[in-house]
């Protein structure tokens, strides 16, 4: 399962996904897609398209076809396990709510 919208070799220029780091210290976040003939042009097109209002200090591009996504048909079994395991979150531990610095 690749990124939605990938048209394989059908289009003259393939689809790329763009990730932008808004400022130092933050992760790259998915900003959108674009078409480009290769990775060199893709990263430049990403700069021209997704950072022209100073939205970023770094961009990543990746071929949409190169993305592996979790299987949408297995959604329930894939993401069921964490449900009901609230003990993984600090909020589960109410007895210590009133204790300072804990």
């Amino acid at each position: 399962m690749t990124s939605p919208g990938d048209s394989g070799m059908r289009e003259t220029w393939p689809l790329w996904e763009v990730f932008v780091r808004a400022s130092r210290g933050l992760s790259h976040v998915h900003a959108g897609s674009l078409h480009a003939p290769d990775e060199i042009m893709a990263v430049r097109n990403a700069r021209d398209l997704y950072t022209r209002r100073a939205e970023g200090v770094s961009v990543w591009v990746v071929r949409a076809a190169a993305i592996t996504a979790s299987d949408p048909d297995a959604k329930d079994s894939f993401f069921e396990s964490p449900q009901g395991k609230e003990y993984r979150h600090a909020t589960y531990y109410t007895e210590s709510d009133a204790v300072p610095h804990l």
Partner: protein
Amino acid sequence: MSHSTNHIASTAITPESIAQSLASSSDLPDVAVATYALGLGDDALVLAQRLGEWIARAPELEEDVALGNIGLDQLGHARSFLTYAGSAFGKTEDELAYFRDEPEFLNHQLFEQPNGDFAQTIAKQMIASVYFVALYRGLAASNDAMLAAIAAKAAKEVDYHLDHCVQWVKRLGLGTAESNRRMQRGLEVMWAFADELFRSDAPTDSLVALGIAVSPSSLRPAFDALVPPLIVASGLTVPVTTFTRGGGRAGLHSESLGPLLAEMQVLARAHPGASW
């Protein structure tokens, strides 16, 4: 996403900030410096005008945006240089852009050349960008603080323009037989206008002696070191140098500037004194 735009914090030099600082300054450029700035401003303005013609016509949407960015950078350089130049003559950037006639425009002839096809535009942009990169890097160290400040910002921007053009020269040169043929033709058309960029003239030379201007002939080695090898590596042939008259800095132009100015100035001149 409020953190995603930091343009408010930007302290970048703008035509408006230049006009503002000049309004309260007694340190205005003399006529020689202003005339030099005018030539630089006209180069960028005429090139920006040509780039604007590409918008909504580029080979792909991504390239519409890319050429738009380059055009906007050039227009920004033009406005900064013209604002500075105008302060010596009591004129605004718009009075200079819209109410001078063709012989008063001091741009090199390369910049006024028609776009032609995408390859021809890339050929022109590539020659222009190599020139600008070398020029603005030198000018950033000018003894004239305003020219140095404008050039320092512009130098970073034209670096990117050059990179964009280099990428396209490679792709068009080595892409298909048709793109190679078109890229070669584009180079042939534009090559004749390259030499003018590196010719010295007396007014510029006297500013070079003062450490204000950059000597045009000093930029030639950078061009020769980069451009012919790029052309050859892209499967293309370096065109034979042809004689051109040049003279843009003295107000002599090719057949292309007149129509460009007629279009650019038509509305402003129909309403003299109007504000927009």
